[in-house]
């Protein structure tokens, strides 16, 4: 059966079609879900794509967490459904309290748009199950507020539970502990700043993103429907 993925579209999202295209290339069916809808429908996984949800007004993700669809995303996550937040989607997940920490402005005050090498720090998550610890993946980053930060207590917890899933090889933005992506305690909710959907074809410089999105689909297929 084809895996169905709900891709949430906020006003200001701009990566939803890239995500849909990348998922289609992996044999999945992506369905765009408008943020004002209240029901995700019958999906096996959810992606919050990159962009500038609600114009990033106030703070990135601050308004998006109140979009009507987010209650359904929260319920899906609580039921164990795989939820992936990419870039702005990661910011939304932290604001919504589905992932710990926050994304602050890049150290150095620069908008970053470059390929980044990432090392897999945990292969036990909905995003990294098809990789191995130590694998190096190349994905583009494209953000101004990607500097991951959290309290010392939260960082200790993330490390103890091996919930940092990806680290930058060469930290571009000042993120604490070189963190590029983290997962929830149940490992089904994952957020990362780099863009796997933009690295799904060798023509684009890397197809390492397929391993991550492929992991998400495999994770979704390997569990009972929510």
């Amino acid at each position, binding site marked *: 059966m084809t895996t169905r993925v709900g891709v949430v579209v906020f006003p200001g999202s701009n990566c939803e079609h890239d995500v849909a295209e990348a998922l289609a290339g992996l044999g999945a069916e992506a369905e765009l879900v408008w943020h004002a809808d209240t029901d995700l429908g019958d999906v096996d996984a959810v992606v919050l794509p990159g962009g500038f949800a609600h114009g990033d007004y106030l703070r990135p993700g601050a308004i998006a967490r109140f979009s009507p669809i987010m209650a359904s995303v929260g319920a899906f996550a609580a039921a164990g459904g795989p939820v992936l937040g990419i870039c702005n989607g990661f910011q939304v997940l932290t604001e919504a309290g589905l992932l710990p920490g926050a994304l602050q402005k890049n150290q150095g005050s620069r908008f970053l748009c470059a390929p980044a090498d990432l090392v897999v720090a945990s292969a036990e998550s909905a995003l990294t199950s098809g990789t191995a610890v130590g694998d190096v993946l190349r994905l583009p980053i494209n953000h101004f507020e990607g*500097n991951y930060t959290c309290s010392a207590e939260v960082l200790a917890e993330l490390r103890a539970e091996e919930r940092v899933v990806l680290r930058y090889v060469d930290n571009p933005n000042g993120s604490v502990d070189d963190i590029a992506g983290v997962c929830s305690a149940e490992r089904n909710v994952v957020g990362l700043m780099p863009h796997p959907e933009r690295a799904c074809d060798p023509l684009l410089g890397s197809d390492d993103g397929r391993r991550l999105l492929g992991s998400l689909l495999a994770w979704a297929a390997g569990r009972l429907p929510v």
Partner: protein
Amino acid sequence: MRFPVLVEVRLRPGIADPQGATIQRALPALGYEGVAEVRVGKAIRFSVEAADEAAARVQVDELCQRLLANPVIEDTAVTIG
């Protein structure tokens, strides 16, 4: 009663403030030496309807926690009246 409110949203101590650092670096170029500790925040003004000032403060503190600031990286200073 309606109370005017000013909420200052500030980056918590220890949180990097690249905007503040950039402003601070620019000032000597204009001849302003000795300016330090520049921090950039937000000022949000609005008014609330409440029975009294204490009730207004309870409401404002709650909406600061829930929306206006992200407690991981920001704190707030509330002025009512």
